């Protein structure tokens, strides 16, 4: 299937949002997940399946202020 990940069309086998992010180096804590225009908790991401054509963004929370 294809999704729009970080603004780019990306081919992926079926997976949960969490598994996709982990496979793409954006798993775990410290990441804001936006899936289909809504923020998704890491816990929910572990069970929500990717849908064909859906948009997914991951924003790393880094230190400094």
């Amino acid at each position, binding site marked *: 299937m294809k999704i729009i990940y970080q603004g780019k069309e990306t081919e992926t086998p079926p997976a949960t949002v969490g598994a996709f992010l982990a496979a793409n180096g954006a798993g775990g804590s410290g990441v804001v997940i936006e899936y289909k225009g809504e923020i998704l908790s890491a816990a929910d991401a572990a069970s929500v399946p990717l849908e064909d054509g859906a948009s997914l963004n991951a924003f790393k929370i*880094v230190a400094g202020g």
Partner: protein
Amino acid sequence: MGANTYLTEHERKILESAKIGIAGAGGLGSNVAALLVRAGVRRFVVADFDTVAESNLNRQFFFRRQIGEKKVAALAHNLRLIEPDLELDLRDIRLAADNIAEVFDGCDVIVEAMDAAESKEMLLNAFLPAGRRVVSAAGLAGWGRSNDIRTRKVGRNLVLVGDQTRDVRDGFAPVGVRVEIAAAHEANAVASLLLGEEL
């Protein structure tokens, strides 16, 4: 009249009636507060447990003679030099998951202006599931790359500022000019959310 003489009456009413929470009075928070006071915001809840240190003076809205003072008190003094007529709820407190909701109860927008990534995440987890509007920053350290610092709307209630890359834990110093760019993004996002302007 207030600090901003360029406001329409409509804008003035909106900005003066809003209550803004600022979590952290350091490089981001002290500058966001000063910018919002200049913009016309009058009501704030500011929370920070720390005292002013010499290392803060490269980027924070404090002065050398204020070293050793509590940040919330020093910031209140400095903000009132811009605009005396402010409603400031100052919280000399270390924000945590068990107190943050009470501290910022009733705030229209909460500005995440903390140092540690874990603290930023704690704040987001406290307010986003509850549908509260949050402006947060991540990735503002180091020199150069001004244009990498962006304002993004994420989901319905989060505005995220920064480059999401330059982490102080990776050796990038918190340099004032870049921190203040991020602070200006945060302040502009707050004002835009209040006024219904495009981010």
